[in-house]
């Protein structure tokens, strides 16, 4: 399918393009219908920026809920229904701005730019204005320069560390998680879902685990078992 090779700037853009491809309005039914396609796109995550994976997964989890609700309506709760309503509203809001951005794109393409007074291309000792002259600030000494530079370096170091951590965080793919769960099923015929949650390092990984389990259920490798609402979910190997 062509859409799978396209790169999307975010989950809402992907959602909207899927819905519009089906020529549907933004409704719960439409969302349920395109859930599979959305997840199929996500699996080939080569076109998703690593720092956006989490945002795509949050929406994936919502779509799966909507889909499961379409199949098993008695499972829904008012809070969760409100969340669906919110997703629809959010999507409509996004659509407004997407359309507005096309308007801006058109304006920019007309090249009706306004310009400031030209300060000339760079040259030796460029003089910007005739009134330019050496006028240093009063209270500045070389020690202050050193302090400021040290401060800047400290700030940049902190920023650099943060960036690195961010990149490492999003390294688990659904496929990797599926393999992990398959291995687990080889050792044990049954285990609880909370065990998977415990083994997940962060929120993103929990969502990935959830998607992986759902995928394996779809492929008929496992089934769920739950005694009642909010009670522990057990995962059992099939065959």
């Amino acid at each position, binding site marked *: 399918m062509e859409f799978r090779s396209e790169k999307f*700037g*975010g*989950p*809402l*853009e992907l959602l909207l393009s899927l819905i519009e491809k089906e020529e549907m309005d933004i409704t719960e039914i439409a969302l349920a219908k395109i859930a599979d396609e959305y997840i199929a796109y996500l699996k080939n995550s080569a076109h998703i920026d690593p*720092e*956006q994976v*989490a*945002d795509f*997964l*949050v*929406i994936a989890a919502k779509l799966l809920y909507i889909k499961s609700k379409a199949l098993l309506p008695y499972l829904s709760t008012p809070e969760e229904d409100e969340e669906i309503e*919110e997703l629809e*509203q*959010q999507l*409509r*809001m*996004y659509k*407004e*701005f*997407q359309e*507005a*951005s096309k*308007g*801006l*794109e058109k*304006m*920019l*393409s*007309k*090249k*009706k*730019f*306004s*310009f*400031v*007074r*030209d*300060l000339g291309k760079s040259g030796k000792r460029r003089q910007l*204005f005739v009134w330019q002259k050496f006028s240093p600030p009063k209270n500045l000494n070389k020690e202050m320069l050193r302090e400021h530079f040290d401060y800047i370096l400290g700030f940049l170091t902190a*920023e650099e560390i*943060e*960036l690195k951590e*961010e990149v490492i*965080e*999003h390294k688990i793919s659904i496929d990797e998680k599926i393999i992990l769960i398959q291995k687990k099923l080889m050792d044990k015929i049954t285990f609880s879902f909370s065990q998977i949650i415990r083994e997940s390092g962060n*929120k*993103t990984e929990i*969502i990935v685990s959830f998607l992986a389990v759902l995928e394996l259920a779809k492929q008929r490798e496992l089934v769920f078992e739950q005694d009642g609402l909010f009670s522990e979910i057990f995962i059992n190997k099939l065959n």
Partner: protein
Amino acid sequence: MATLKSQLESLMFVANKPLTVKELADLLKIKTAEVDSAMDELSLDYTNAGSGLQVIKNNGKYQMVSSAENAAVVQEFIKDETSGELSRPSLEALTVIAYRGPITKIDLDRIRGVNCSLIIRNLLIRGLIEEKADKEKKESFYNVTMDFIRYLGINRLEDLPDYERLHKDDTIDKILNREEPMEIVSDSI
């Protein structure tokens, strides 16, 4: 008063950069409201006379620029090669900031449904948006810059199509003010 308008005109010409209403008021020792009304008048004069100049107002600042109508001949003269092309995500973020600014990062994230840290950094570096820190609220707000407005060929953001509606939209406000409208999992950079 003719003199006041004339003084403002001279100042903006010489400055060749955005000047805040306050800077102008202090220089001329008048009230900011007087600056605003003289500037409105000047801007109207330029439009009515089909002048080659115009005044852009943005975010409490004024700047004198050449009129958008004459873009082609000016661009030829200064051999400017600006294409005005932007990537889709950049354009989308700029649109949201133009219509909803001043806007926080979290609200921008909510509207686009995705973490916008890198795009914000990119737009800041390119001078298309600017950041203003609100120390009391411990939050940063983003606005588009004069430079971006210069590329659009308008005098102020209010001239954007549908500005009034999108800027004040109730539904959008409601969605943005929800307690936990959408979880952005990854933290900001």
